């Protein structure tokens, strides 16, 4: 029994205690051990035929000893991961308003087409003559992305947004290099509200990041920006709509000023979903922008990826696009790979093979399903829903800025002042109400930030219930008597609040027989 430490080991006889269970389970909420605590030698979840004996070619390097992998049968594996899944919240369960992450509906048809034989099972190095349909598919998505953004070129290979940032900033470095100005232009301007990946990317490429201040309306202070622009500036990295959920109203003046100063405009496109089909970044003077297919185009977030981050490029940066890309010759498609004779000076390669094909397929299915008309409606419904939440909550909670927002509504924690309830406490209380909390403490420029992104996928009735719950929680918090209750939240989740300090102080990053986890005595819990 002690092998299964995630489950209550000792079944104590607890006739004394009322509201506890012997197993530690709570009906459908079942405690789950680690696979390493479930394994048995000689047990397996596969049946593989015994191979014929042949002389091995292992150069004497045959692995000795135990690897240490646990042996589980298929039924146990199914039960293990099913029970684990039941400890997760997900888009499929309800409102998941995680700002900046765009947790919109993930259609199942996209999963289906991505698995078609002839699509899901192609090897990236099959002869090009045997993958013409795959290349056409990628080219079709590329066409959509270029047209929707109004940009002449796109690099498809980046694996996620951050990878796209790396790609785009490398292209800018390449352009500067060919202008002989790379050594001189070492500064990248970015607002303090920028996502962490922006400064991280710029710094990795040897740029120094200089913050540009925001004005009281939450946008870039144009005057300050102009003052900051000089011969040392390589680029500006700006998210638009920005991470406060606001459209940079002076963006055209910004891009003009940036270009006038000989610098480039990197636009972080994580929030493209707010304007897709309605506004073309190309019309705003953007030089490059990554598109998170797992946000705007709904490829599943999968518990933290995989994603895809194609980067659209202006004419100025297009020549530096990395390998590979798809080329159409008449009715045939080919791949421009490393060493291929091409015009332009590709900046190199960022990833093996041809990019996140599985995400391309899903994104294209999503795009085809919506069409130009539907995508425009997506942007409008996303913005409408965010403004609706903002309007409904503006008197109970405290909006960080006034005026309409785009796809996400940003609040600060002023309304919690002197209540003893923090943004974190408020978020944890939302969990008990059946919601995933909003993004907390981001962007950094707003105190105790709460960034709510409903997306276009929620019904009005569900938004109303969500709004009602937040109102009630805010009122309870303001009552001043509920700090304890908030600190205790969540009460009903698979786990109560977790000790993150302990985790960081003594990191346990892998199972070891010696870990011996805190014993779970259900009787003790009950007593509390």
């Amino acid at each position, binding site marked *: 029994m002690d092998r299964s430490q995630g489950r209550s080991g000792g079944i104590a006889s607890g006739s004394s205690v009322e509201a506890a269970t012997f197993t530690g389970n709570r009906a459908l909420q079942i405690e789950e051990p*680690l696979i390493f605590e479930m*394994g048995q030698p000689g047990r397996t*979840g596969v049946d593989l035929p015994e*191979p014929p004996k042949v002389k091995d*070619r292992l*150069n*004497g390097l045959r692995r000795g000893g135990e*690897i240490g992998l646990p042996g589980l049968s298929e039924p146990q594996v199914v039960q293990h*991961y099913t029970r684990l899944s039941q400890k*997760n919240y*997900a*888009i499929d369960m309800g409102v*998941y308003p*995680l700002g900046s992450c765009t947790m919109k509906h993930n*259609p199942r048809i996209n999963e289906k087409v991505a698995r*078609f*034989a*002839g699509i899901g099972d*192609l090897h*990236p*190095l*099959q*002869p090009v003559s*045997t993958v013409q349909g795959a290349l056409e598919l990628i080219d079709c998505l590329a066409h959509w992305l270029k047209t929707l953004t109004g940009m002449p070129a796109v690099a498809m290979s980046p694996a*996620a947004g951050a*990878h796209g940032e790396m790609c785009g900033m490398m292209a800018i*470095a390449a352009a500067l290099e060919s202008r002989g100005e790379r050594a001189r232009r070492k500064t990248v301007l970015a607002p303090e509200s920028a996502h*962490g990946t922006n*400064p*991280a*990317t710029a*710094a*990795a*490429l040897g740029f120094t990041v200089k913050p540009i201040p925001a004005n009281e309306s939450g946008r870039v202070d144009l005057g300050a920006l102009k003052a900051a622009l000089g011969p040392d500036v390589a680029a500006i990295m700006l998210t638009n709509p920005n991470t406060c959920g*606001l459209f*940079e109203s002076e963006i055209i003046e910004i891009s003009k000023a940036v270009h006038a100063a000989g610098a480039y405009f990197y636009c972080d496109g994580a929030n493209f979903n707010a304007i897709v*089909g309605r506004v073309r970044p190309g019309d705003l003077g953007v030089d490059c922008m990554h598109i998170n297919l797992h946000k705007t185009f709904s490829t599943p977030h999968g518990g933290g990826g995989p994603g895809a981050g194609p980067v659209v490029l202006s004419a100025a940066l297009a020549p530096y696009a990395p390998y590979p890309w798809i080329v159409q010759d008449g009715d045939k498609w080919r791949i421009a790979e490393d060493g291929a004779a091409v015009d332009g000076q590709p900046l190199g390669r960022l990833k093996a*093979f*041809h990019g996140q094909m*599985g995400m391309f397929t899903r994104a294209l299915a999503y795009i*085809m*399903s919506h069409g130009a*008309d539907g995508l425009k*409606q997506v942007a409008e*419904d996303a913005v*409408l829903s965010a*403004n609706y939440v903002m*309007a409904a909550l503006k008197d109970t909670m405290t909006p960080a800025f006034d005026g*309409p927002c*785009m796809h996400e509504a940003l609040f600060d924690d002023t309304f919690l002042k002197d209540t003893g309830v923090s943004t974190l406490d408020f*978020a944890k209380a939302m969990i008990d109400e059946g919601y995933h909390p909003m993004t907390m403490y981001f962007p950094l420029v707003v105190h105790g930030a709460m960034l709510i992104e409903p997306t276009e996928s929620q*019904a*009005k009735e569900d938004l109303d219930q969500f709004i009602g719950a937040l109102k009630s929680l805010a009122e309870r918090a303001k009552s001043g008597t509920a700090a304890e209750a908030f600190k205790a939240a969540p009460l009903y989740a698979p786990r109560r*609040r977790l000790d993150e300090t302990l*985790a960081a102080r003594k*990191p346990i*990053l892998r199972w070891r027989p010696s870990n011996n*986890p805190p014993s*779970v005595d259900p009787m003790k*819990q009950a007593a509390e």
Partner: protein
Amino acid sequence: MRYLPLTDADRRDMLGVIGVKSVDELFRDVPQSARLGGKIAGLPDHLGELEVERAFQAYAAKNVSSSVAPFFIGAGAYRHHVPATVDYMIQRGEFLTSYTPYQPEITQGTLQYLFEFQTQVTLLTGMEVANASMYDGSTGTSEAVLMANRVTRRSKALLSGGLNPQYRRIVETTAHWQGFKAVSGKPDAEGLEDLIAAVDKETSCVVVQNPSFFGHVRDFGKLAEACHAAGALLIVVVTEVVSLGLLKPPGEMGADIVVCEGQSIGNGLGFGGPYVGLFATRDKYMRQMPGRLVGETVDADGKRGFVLTLSTREQHIRREKATSNICTNAGLCALAFTVHLTLLGEAGFRRLAEINHTKAAQLADKVSALPGVKVLNDSFFNEFTISLGKPAAPVVEALAARRILGGVPASRLLPDDKSVENLLLLAATETATDEGMAALVAGLKEVL
């Protein structure tokens, strides 16, 4: 629109609550010059599900599915049988449609499988600590070099000629734009390369691959010693993770960082992505690792639970000082990996590796009997290189015309290197059949 719950009535009500006449007013911050009249021109309108399905069936029909043709392609991606249980699990909405576990109380499912995944990676590689995944093996390799530069405070990486050429190009690209030296050995088709002499006091790391791009299996123990003597790190790359079921793990060879392409376990070929990068190292370098880490802790009731930890390495906390800019990684592919590996277990994983090696050995014996064909490898796992005495690319095209997917010409990844023009890489996994091998041999007979 099937995906949009708001009705026109809802939209009217909501505009009313907001206090605006039309949704256009909400876009008032968009500069006049950038406002489009209506829809973006030149793009089709929305399609029903049946029409979308047909469009993708049409794409699929223009490809040769790897399931219908005799198949021997590898070179960094391998065709394996993935149990149906794996695909079922990764499609469960609770996994598929949730995101990075920022709220641990309601993402214990994701956190626990990542903790189990990290442990499995340490066991396979023989290392002490592993992260929760990188995009794939190729990007993980350049992250490993960057990490070695941080650890050693040096900036010269030696890249083996046995390293996958695309991986090499990626490191070189990173080196060029991030400003460090990457010195690459020439393609090592015979598997004779010895890098020990090249290691010096500027060297931050040596990057080798096992089995190598050409399939050779090597022990890098001596190289590790040389690296450590010179204060450099040894980075071992594994592109066929199944090989670890049969081969001495990099950890036992003295590797400091191990990067694997995890695709072979749980993840289909998918035309090159998404895949999953495995990244493991020594405890002492833990805080220099890129990517997410899941750690064990307890909750308010004293129950064991898991959280994201050591985030001070990461961009969202550390910003320009982060160890990497990676954010979204390969969560669901890591789930596929860990579910498949859990199904395999010790016995199944070892058996799978044994079968792969046996199939490849059988194939090597068969093709080596062909006139004009020479197998270059004395050692290999499930992939090896043959020389054809004539350029390999046209041969592969000729086989494709016969609906045989007969390996990868070295020139596909090394277009500028005449010396490998005649070389063909052949891989065989548990999915290879006797009929398939016979078809390949017959095909080669015809086209050679």
